[in-house]
């Protein structure tokens, strides 16, 4: 018993020791997932430029919300805590019950990323049923897919008309993991593939049986417009839609799509600190150095693809805020609830 007690004491001693670090990156996911791996890479590289130890702390939970909530309610008041957020957190900010609020933080850096959608080679949008593997964070992808499959609606593109078409022609399968999605796409169970740019290049480029369907493009912050993805030119959703249906996308679902797309992709991989944090300027400068360092940036881009960083927090948040209208928000909630079965809620406080 005495020996067991000694063991326990040593274990607790070790625990106390392991808690000591200079900077902590809070990742709202378990180890091994996309943003966790990105966070590990950032921590390793940021250390060199910040001159202090940076450790990653994972706080996972449903839809990756609890970790961000914990940062908001508690951890952000620590001067050396940095939040790592992903695009799904941005969508949850709009549509789920969350505590966190981007407007309370200072942006340290955000990678304006994209998502690539593929389809079975030669499959015709205008006919047949389409199967898609769903999951949280997929909202804009599936909405865009629905618009491409259903085309312009007689009533101008209301949520109800797209929902009717969705029920008729799209099968959304919940809870499919990344690898299983790929397997399902490969064996024809799913018609639509959805990947990060790096994963698309790794798993689909040069492989028969699939074709790149569309991308969402990236946000041109200076002009507040969506522009072509530099890695996949001429594949932006709006262009693909216009080419297929002979007119530009429009209607309520399109407005809801733009809202969720930009709140996801413009802050796809982002770092935040509490507003007024005395270390924010130092960390921001270190991130700038890291972005400009060829070795560090090569390691980051190997994971994400080459995408621009945004460090102008006020402009970014203003651009995103401009997309939030009562109509778009209500329509996004309705689409999420009825098309995907997600427990989304309308939050009028976002309009303030």
């Amino acid at each position, binding site marked *: 018993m005495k020996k067991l007690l000694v063991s326990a004491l040593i274990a607790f001693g070790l625990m106390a020791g392991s808690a000591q670090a200079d900077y902590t990156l809070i990742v709202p996911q378990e180890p091994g997932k996309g943003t966790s791996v990105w966070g590990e890479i950032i921590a390793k590289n940021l250390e060199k430029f910040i001159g202090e130890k940076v450790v990653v702390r994972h706080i996972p939970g449903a839809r990756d919300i609890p970790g961000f909530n914990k940062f908001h309610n508690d951890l952000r008041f620590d001067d050396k805590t940095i939040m790592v957020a992903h695009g799904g957190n941005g969508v949850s900010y709009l549509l789920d019950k969350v505590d966190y609020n981007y407007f309370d933080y200072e942006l340290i850096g955000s990678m304006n990323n994209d998502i690539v959608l593929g389809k079975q080679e030669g499959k015709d949008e205008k006919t047949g049923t389409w199967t898609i593997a769903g999951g949280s964070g997929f909202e804009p992808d599936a909405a865009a897919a629905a618009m491409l499959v259903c085309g312009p609606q007689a009533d101008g593109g209301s949520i109800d008309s797209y929902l009717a078409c969705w029920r008729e022609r799209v099968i959304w399968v919940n809870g499919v993991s990344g*690898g299983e999605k790929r397997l399902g796409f490969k064996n024809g169970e799913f018609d639509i593939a959805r990947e990060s740019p790096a994963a698309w290049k790794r798993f689909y480029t040069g492989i028969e049986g699939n074709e790149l369907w569309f991308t969402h493009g990236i946000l041109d912050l200076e002009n507040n417009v969506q522009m072509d993805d530099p890695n996949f030119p001429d594949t932006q959703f709006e262009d693909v839609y216009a080419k297929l249906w002979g007119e530009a996308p429009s209607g309520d679902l399109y407005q809801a799509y733009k809202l969720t797309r930009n709140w996801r992709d413009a802050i796809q991989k982002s770092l935040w600190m509490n507003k007024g944090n005395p270390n924010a300027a130092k960390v921001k400068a270190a991130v700038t150095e890291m972005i400009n360092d060829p070795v560090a940036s090569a390691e980051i881009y190997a994971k994400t693809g080459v995408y621009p960083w945004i460090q102008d927090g006020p402009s970014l948040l203003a651009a995103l805020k401009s997309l939030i209208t009562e109509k778009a928000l209500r329509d996004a909630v309705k689409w999420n609830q009825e098309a995907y079965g997600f427990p989304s809620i309308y939050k009028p406080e976002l309009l303030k």
Partner: protein
Amino acid sequence: MDYVIWALIGTMYGMLVGIIPIAGVTTALITVFSMGAYFMADPYLGLVFLTAIVASCASADSYTSILTGIPGASTTAACVIDGYPMAKKGQAARAMGIAITDSTFNGVIFAALTFFLLPYYGKIIVLFGRPEFLGFMTMALACVGFVASKNVFLSICAIIFGLCVGMVGEDVVSNPRLTFGWEYLQNGIGMVVLLSGLFGVPELLDGFRRQLKSAAPPMEGNYFVGLKQGFGDCRRHWKDMVRGGLIGFVTGLLPGVGGAVGDFLAYGATKAAHKGKDQEVPFGEGNPVGLLGCEGANNAQKVSSMIPACLFGIPAAPFAAMVMAICMYFGMEIGTPSLLDDLQFTNSLAFGYIFGTVGVALLSIFLYKYILKILEVPFWIYATFILVVIVYANMQYTGGWEDVALLAILSAIGVVCKQFNISRPAILVAYVVAFKIDEYFWGTLQLYGYKQWKPGLTSMEGFRWGELFNIYNHPIFLVCIVIAVGIFLNSILRKDKGIDYV
């Protein structure tokens, strides 16, 4: 060069943990989990390290069983039956000769068979859609519950508990489920903490309780002469050696059934094959044939366990679950054609395993004296070290007190299961398949006519049963369901026969 260095480090570490009584491959892997971040830049290097640990630990576990009579791990318990009496008679070197030859032979042969064919097995997986996976998971569940334990009631308890643990977290549309208001549980219960709690900590506590002493009996004669004698035994009885390996290989393929089953089946088969024949020594009293009949099964089983793990994400044994957890940590997606098509993945597995198997054999031949010294170290010293590392490894999850609290809760459950012979492997596999069965069940429903399913909807109107149960569309699904029913009926009708895995 890095690959050789890490393979060597893995081999030495695996050997060290393997020599420690009770601590087996699962414990070895849990203790290195905290090194995961180091290998993030080159996950294949991490794979080489891991598989070298698995291979060397599997072999070294046998040495402890033979030399001390205390199983190095549950998977080498059968080696004690004839191995330890040989050591007590002063034939430790001969027994070691058998163990080294048998482990190396079966380890290398079956590693080559497994890893070099793994990409071809990958072609099978493309045939699997939602219904096929649902059928396979149901079969896996039936296998583990009713093949793994003689006590059907306790097996059912274990399965229900495992399913509940596996369901903790989120449902398929990301609503919290079975979290009892504890936000920490919203991401589910991790594989590492479950393995640590169910297997790692209870075994260590049991060692403390029993105040294990593990010194080997004195050896007679020259060590190298004894080893040579053991090599000769293997050459003479090569059929027994190969049979043992084959049995281990096949049991390793069965989801959740791996572990000690292969060794005991191989031992039983060897006894049966020699029934009525004159023996140098009776079985159970230090018969070299008894030892070589079961010894290699462990190594073959370890390697073939990787097939269901890599193909379907279903662990055949606890250690394979740990390998899966570490692969997931590296961002490798188990059970996908892209991973199986990745030659660097299969080559890393093959290199690490074969290096570990051969490396531990060479180390054992030349460092035998030191193995005996390690065995003399009091159990509480290395058990303390392992306990600390297990706690530390589990704190890599969030770093919060919740990690330790959950480990403590699961360790208490593990101790109770051990005490009352409740099948922990059954809990583990039920846990792994729980979420998958849920996911595949709803996926099958959605794809086969019930496409507008969402939470709260219960009508089955429009479900195309005929399409799902059409043998021409889904033969694998139907075969799996038939096998699952067969296993269930067999377990009910023949529950008093067979081996009690627990």
